[in-house]
């Protein structure tokens, strides 16, 4: 067990092992997203109340899921790096920040586009939307901290602390729909619970969520690999890999 933990903590081992997983992961991701996209856009039935604008759900909801799940990944990696001084965990934390920020941005912008035909406005200062905006700023804060220190260790410590403190926001996002329900507009059909959806609409959503999870893992691995290569560029194993033109 501990041997496994140490091996996983080695950037070199991770780089070489993940190179073998990548083609499979990329293939699965592409197939899932392609099926989900076509299913959601063309084959799922239109919503009785919202019409075709409801099809935005197939990117809005998976992107929001991963924006939140990605925050756990970043905070847990930050904590592991802080406690056990694991280099790989710090690199994962750094790699998770721009990915989470981009997915939060997608969730916010698709929500805004969806809001126009559904609520009649692009933006409301509603609890859910505002707390998602705070999530975007937390991700951007971690990215900014990474660039504002000359010492890598100091940057990692500061980013890890910020991401752990920012965890407070996560339950607020989850619960915002219940706690501030009275502030919500009545037309928030998109927050209905999954099982109340018709299976014909729900199944493509499940495919898209699975596809987004794979996509998240894929990009996180790609980011981490480029970070490993950059940080270890002076080591002999990186030179060997480049010389032999290995993946």
């Amino acid at each position, binding site marked *: 067990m501990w041997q496994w933990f140490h091996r996983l903590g080695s950037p070199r081992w991770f780089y070489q092992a993940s190179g073998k997983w990548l083609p499979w992961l990329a293939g699965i991701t592409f197939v899932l997203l392609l099926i989900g996209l076509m299913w959601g856009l063309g084959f799922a039935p239109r919503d009785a109340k919202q*019409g075709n*604008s409801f*099809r935005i759900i197939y990117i809005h909801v998976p992107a929001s899921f991963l924006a939140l799940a990605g925050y756990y990944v970043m905070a847990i990696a930050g904590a592991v790096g802080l406690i056990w001084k694991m280099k790989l965990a710090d690199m994962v934390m750094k790699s998770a920040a721009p990915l989470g920020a981009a997915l939060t941005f997608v969730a916010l912008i698709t929500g805004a586009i969806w809001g126009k035909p559904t609520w009649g406005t692009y933006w409301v200062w509603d609890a859910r939307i505002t707390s998602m905006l705070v999530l975007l700023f937390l991700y951007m804060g971690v990215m900014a901290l990474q660039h504002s220190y000359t010492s890598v260790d100091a940057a990692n410590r500061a980013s890890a602390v910020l991401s752990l403190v920012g965890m407070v926001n996560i339950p607020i996002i989850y619960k915002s729909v219940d706690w501030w329900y009275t502030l919500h507009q009545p037309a928030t059909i998109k927050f209905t619970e999954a099982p109340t959806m018709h299976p014909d609409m729900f199944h493509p959503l499940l495919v898209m969520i699975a596809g987004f999870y794979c996509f998240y893992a894929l990009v996180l691995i790609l980011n981490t690999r480029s970070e490993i290569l950059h940080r270890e560029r002076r080591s002999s194993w990186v030179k060997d890999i480049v010389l032999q033109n290995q993946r």
Partner: protein
Amino acid sequence: MFRFDSFQHFLQMDGHGAYVWSAYLIAILVMAWLVVSPLFRQSRVRQAVTRELRRETARQHSAGEAGKE
């Protein structure tokens, strides 16, 4: 079963086409950028390492030449 009777209908989505397609387009562009940017970074680092290696061999080579004289 495909829910639209024509491609035109599919694009228009009963008046919601602009919303649905712009949302999907933005998501696809962002996701494509997410995949491509680490790959570009990888190749930049690899190029830098290659240049460094070439410089090293050149230095060793010239040092060897100097040693012969």
